[in-house]
């Protein structure tokens, strides 16, 4: 990158500047700085409790931040008192436990966002929703209810539900952690396709091999800080920080890398 004083600041899709978050006396995020350019795929790795999920929830304003800025297209969205609803519709989120609406069919889960939030009319939303389900190989399950689907199918529906809103950024919060091992692949395939389509994504995960394959950058979180950040080759092959090395060693010992 050849920055000069006169060059425009590189347009970041999403940035965090010194973001802090505590729950009571527990500090969960302790000054996070992060830049995400359009089309970037950033994975967040780190032990449970290191702050990965909270970081994503703060980006989506599901958790109010205590301090620091979150910039979406250069606009601070973490400003206290700001209406979060218009911002959330631009940032999609997929959860570890899917959070599908159990009282609605698959197609209704996928179309409820566009219908209620974007005001898309019912038949148009249904056409778009069916197209989305087809992309994710779920056409046959459109009228089923979430409880009737496998975990992998449920998670793909949850991804379809987020994508139906046409988000500018997609946050994936350990989306394969609740799945049986043989169902992980079908969900990761979806993420691969999204990357190919140029989707900007932040991905908290324990799937190290996948993180290595798909990431533009990997962030290692430790006690609410990004301890180390870099391209996957560097993080996984020659981590600089002792704590990153220790974490990866534990992952290797557990047979997950």
């Amino acid at each position: 990158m050849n920055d000069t004083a006169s060059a425009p600041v590189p347009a970041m899709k999403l940035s965090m500047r010194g973001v802090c978050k505590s729950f009571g006396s527990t500090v969960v995020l302790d000054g996070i700085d992060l830049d995400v350019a359009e089309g970037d795929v950033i994975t967040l790795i780190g032990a449970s409790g290191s702050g990965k999920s909270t970081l994503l929830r703060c980006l989506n304003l599901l958790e109010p931040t205590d301090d620091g800025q979150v910039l979406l297209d250069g606009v601070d969205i973490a400003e206290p008192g700001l209406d979060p609803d218009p911002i959330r519709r631009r940032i999609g989120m997929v959860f570890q436990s899917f959070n599908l609406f159990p009282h609605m069919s698959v197609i209704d889960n996928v179309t409820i966002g566009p219908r209620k939030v974007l005001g898309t009319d019912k038949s148009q939303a249904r056409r778009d929703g069916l197209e989305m389900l087809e992309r994710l190989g779920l056409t046959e399950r459109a009228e089923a209810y979430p409880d009737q689907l496998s975990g992998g199918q449920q998670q793909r529906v949850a991804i379809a539900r987020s994508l139906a809103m046409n988000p500018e950024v997609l946050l994936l919060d350990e989306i394969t952690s609740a799945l049986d091992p043989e169902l992980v692949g079908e969900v990761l395939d979806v993420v691969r396709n999204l990357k190919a389509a140029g989707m900007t994504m932040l991905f908290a995960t324990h799937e190290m091999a996948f993180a290595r394959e798909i990431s533009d950058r990997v962030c290692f979180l430790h006690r609410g800080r990004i301890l180390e950040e870099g391209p996957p080759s560097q993080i996984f092959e020659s981590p600089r920080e002792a704590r990153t090395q220790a974490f990866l060693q534990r992952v290797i010992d557990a047979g997950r890398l």
Partner: protein
Amino acid sequence: MPDRPTRRERYERARRRRSVVVAAISTIVVVGALIVLIPLTPGWERVRQAFFDGDVFIDTFPGLLDAFWLDVRILLWSTPPILVVSLLVALARNTRSPALFPLRAFAVIYTDVLRGIPVILLVFLIGFGVPALGLSREWANPLIWGSVTLVLSYSAYTAEIIRAGIDAVHESQRAGARSLGMTSSQTMRTIVLPQAFRKIVPPLMNTFVSLQKDVALVSLIGPVEILRQAGIDKATYANFTPYVAASLIFLALTIPCTRLADWALARQRARTGATTIA
């Protein structure tokens, strides 16, 4: 699939046969004992004459059924306002904005006070108290104030049931909806309340059955509904059979209601695919 029954099927068939036999025998024994033993009690002949007089039953039944129609009407016009008021009170308790503190406080006081007073006392207090304010003739109708009492009392109970249902919807459902950009009121209407109402169908039906019976309390301030009619008949015939007849008429309404609720729940469970553990 093999044509012959599996080991499990044979086992369950044998077990089913055995439970049917056991149930039949125990029912025959118990009912038989009651039929044999009760008439042996010293007071049975008097009780039979006082409570189970066929002629009195036939004479009074049509009049009681007529009077019951008033109970049904009170029930029908009280139920919708109960649902509306209780929903509003439950939602008021769920608000978070500081500007709405008075509303929240009102909802807490409403539920605490109205649940804390026996319905029978409320009927007297409101049924006699409000018309005493000097209302015009058509507004002094005890039917109105009896019904208002039922609405006040039952909406307080129902509000608590609805609130419990709202609380029982997991926070992750709200997170899912809000992450799509839905507002908090959209989330409440389309995601939380529909799930909350499914969860509270049994307690709501329970309360509805209870209301069906408490409608009779309105008679205490005047209207001749079934309980009062039964009292009149009792005095006329010097016989308690009208009370038994009235009880049967109540059962004819309440039992189908509870069965209906069970059926609706089972159907919904089957539809959304949730399995039950034996």
